[in-house]
């Protein structure tokens, strides 16, 4: 198995909890985590850990700042693979990471039961793999369903 550099990105709260439930799938690779609060550092250990500002669609300046911050992290980490369970930080990681040639994986939050999240819909064109955690949301044009974190 070739060891990959994997950047795993999730906002704090439910997005982070879901990403951590997938952690065994990352083991053995060179992993770095990105999230929106320093308090998650202990959970990220022993992997590298970056904190970014928590921006959302309604605060444009925050998003611009976040984009620059994400760019800096991507330049530093140069991941082969970027995986995210959302939300805005994940979208930006995928969008910018794609430019660097990273393989990009979006796993929409399990909270989005009736439709893909906004960030997920926006991330679609930058995602090599675009997943939902609900089988009834799967369509031939995407998203795909391969399981859930539950």
């Amino acid at each position: 198995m070739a060891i990959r550099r994997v950047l795993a990105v999730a906002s704090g709260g439910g997005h982070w909890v879901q990403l951590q439930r997938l952690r065994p799938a990352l083991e053995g690779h060179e992993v770095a985590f990105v999230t929106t609060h320093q308090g998650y550092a202990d959970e990220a250990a022993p992997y590298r850990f970056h904190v970014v500002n928590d921006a959302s669609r309604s605060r444009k300046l925050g998003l611009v700042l976040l984009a620059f911050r994400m760019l800096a992290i991507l330049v530093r980490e140069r991941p082969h693979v970027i995986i995210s369970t959302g939300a805005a930080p994940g979208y930006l990681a995928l969008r910018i990471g794609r430019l660097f040639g990273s393989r990009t994986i979006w796993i929409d939050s399990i909270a989005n039961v009736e439709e893909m999240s906004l960030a997920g819909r926006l991330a679609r064109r930058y995602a090599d793999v675009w997943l939902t955690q609900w089988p009834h949301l799967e369509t031939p044009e995407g998203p795909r369903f391969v399981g859930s974190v539950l």
Partner: protein
Amino acid sequence: MIFLTVGTQLPFDRLVRVVDEWAGKSGRDDVFAQIGPSQLQPKWLRYQTFVAPGEFAKHVAAATLVIAHAGMGSILYALELGKPIIVMPRRSELNEQRNNHQLATARRFRELGRIMVAMDEVELLSQLQCLQIPSSMPRIGRFATDEMLKSVRQLIEG
């Protein structure tokens, strides 16, 4: 101890007020609340606006019941630690959240039989008043299923 949490992003005063009122009327002094970025000053709850992630897990672990907004973080923590949880969904028309996905989340997880749901304050008060806290609850595993982990690993290594 009962642990009330509204998540880190936004206040959820409608939920906090109901639980505060109930705690006062039922004479409970063992409710601890994480009330988010709120101006409220509950009378009958011990409260903090924010609880660090490590502390959050400890509060859930120490609780006999979790009352929460219908956020996935709260729900997953409760399920992982085998704690009964009652959720009340945030509503976008009340500016409690940007969209109404918590309604859908709450309904679906109630259907799966994993959580209790109160759609509004009236329902919540009524559920709290007839409260019978189960002594133990099934726990979900700490990680996703082996099948899901294998699929994700293949997608990473692919």
